[in-house]
């Protein structure tokens, strides 16, 4: 019996650490099911096989930091029926977007022995700022279960069941005691997009905001709360300017607090 035609999946990398695409390889128990449902046509971290496009689903990791990449993402978009960005770099510009708030030339001088070898843009930006994106999967890194959910949804033509409410919902569902109320620990959870399962508070740490802004976050109210808890202005800025520094609400809130 001829094998059914499997939709082609491509995994693309831009400026990133590869952690999010490796989440796909972390799906050890589900890898056979993935390979059965999808033809992994282009995935440099897993295989040197290179099957040509077009692709039904492209997963895009990383941000746009060079002029070449700004062009390359257009070509990826052109050969992809659905384009799903994965991780904080692709959805918000990543940690490397901290340069967006600094003098680019100065940063190059500090970081590189030969800055003249470097040809990069002055900003690190999300994929959606360059091409239309069908779905953004948040996280630094993304969550494996959520990745499987998104792939299943695209395979079967339905909306991914990915909630965009705060991380607090996940804490309350798993019965984690609120670290902000019970321990006085500043926590980004109330303004952070759910998805990780509220990992850090379950280890009695404040949320770091890896999943970026939740829907309609009131960042100013949380920042006021942080200040009342004794966090300095520069401290508040650093809470908001981490992996998702260039995501609108976090960018704005961070910028309204001094260094």
């Amino acid at each position: 019996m001829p094998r059914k035609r499997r939709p082609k999946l491509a995994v693309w990398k831009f400026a990133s650490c590869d952690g999010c695409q490796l989440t796909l390889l972390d799906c050890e128990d589900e890898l056979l099911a993935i390979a059965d449902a999808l033809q992994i046509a282009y995935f440099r971290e897993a295989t040197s096989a290179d099957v040509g496009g077009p692709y039904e689903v492209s997963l895009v990791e990383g941000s746009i930091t060079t002029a070449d990449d700004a062009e390359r993402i257009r070509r990826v978009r052109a050969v992809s029926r659905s384009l799903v960005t994965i991780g904080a770099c692709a959805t918000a510009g990543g940690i490397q977007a901290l340069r967006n708030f600094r003098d680019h030339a100065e940063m190059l001088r500090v970081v590189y022995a030969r800055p003249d070898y470097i040809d990069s843009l002055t900003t690190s930006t999300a994929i959606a700022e360059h091409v239309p994106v069908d779905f953004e999967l948040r996280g630094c890194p993304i969550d494996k279960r959520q990745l499987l959910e998104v792939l299943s949804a695209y395979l079967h033509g339905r909306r991914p069941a990915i909630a965009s409410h705060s991380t607090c919902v996940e804490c309350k569902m798993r019965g984690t005691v609120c670290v902000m109320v019970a321990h006085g620990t500043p926590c980004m959870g109330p303004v952070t997009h759910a998805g990780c399962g509220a990992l850090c508070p379950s280890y009695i740490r404040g949320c770091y905001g890896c999943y970026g802004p939740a829907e309609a976050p009131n960042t100013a109210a949380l920042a006021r709360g942080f200040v009342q808890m004794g966090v300095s202005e520069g401290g508040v800025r650093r809470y908001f300017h981490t992996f998702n520094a260039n995501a609108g609400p976090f960018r704005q809130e961070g910028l309204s607090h001094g260094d």
Partner: protein
Amino acid sequence: MVHPRPDINASVLLLRDGLASLLQHLRDDGYLVVGPTVRDGAIVHDQLRGIEDLPVGVGDEQAPGRYRLRRRADQALFGYAVGPQSHKREFFPPSIRLFQLRRGAGGPVLTPEPPIDRKLALIGVRSCELQAIAVQDRVFVGGHHVDADYASRRRGVFVVAVNCGEPSGTCFCASMGTGPRASGGFDLALTELLSGGPHRFVVEVGSAAGADLLARVEHAPASEADHAAASAVTAAATANMGRHMDTRDIKSLFYANQEHPRWAQVAERCLGCTNCTLVCPTCFCSTTVDTTDLAGATATRERRWDSCFTLDHSYVHGGSVRPSLRARYRQWLTHKLASWIDQYGTSGCVGCGRCITWCPVGIDITEEAAALRADVPVA
């Protein structure tokens, strides 16, 4: 040893060992015994192996947006107010599977979920909790459409209530008429006495099952002095409520003030994080989530906790009906304190104070309601 079976509505005296023995009998009878215990800096609900798992000698301090445990000077077992979790997660769990569909040769095959079969005993249930359970009973099983899952979890639960002695800084059950003394809905109700004699409990019998259990446990008649001491415990609690809610004409207060400037002010402070609704023992909103597996062989429908503070909750064709925090906060508090009365015949608030304590920025609903009232002209 045989002990006299007390009458229903009678009160007897139980020592600490007697309470330990009572919990052991429940466990021996196959009950899953759930009650308060200390974890991660708070008093939460978990399975109890015995009274040593209770928060022995632990008290709490609560204020808007603040909760701390403290060491008490005595060995009280119930010397604290309600913690972050209510018993709603026992009957209305955060997430349940409703059913699964599998692709079969002749079409989809539905696998319903098996009914819940467990014997649950709840220990240390406060009056506000009992009132909250009664509110949720009206919601889930009181109308024409009975929630079968809730009903099966709720059935046959053995309840050991505790009358409150030391309310927290955010408690206001006295002004809601929901405590601090349990008025019903229990099999046994304890009042813990820490002075004037040995560490002991006055136990009120609320049901035949409660009387049967007490008949297997060493107990003594409660003296007049014990009764007086027990009454003094709840009287002191009533006098020491940290908060007060003025409920006079509260429905019309909210209905007449939907455009009050206070809503915009509270929206400036509100995080929209959902914490108030998820710690609330009566909030019952849920969402339904459908998923499929990679192969497309199985589809699963789940029910998960939701909150009127999420945008998805009021999402209809074209967008959310309540896109602003002002609208969402107003919806929550108006439903809780006013329109709930039209819908279910009681307030949706039992005065437990959780929404005040566990709001990360300390929004106080008694203060919000009072602010609406402050500007209402006296009739």
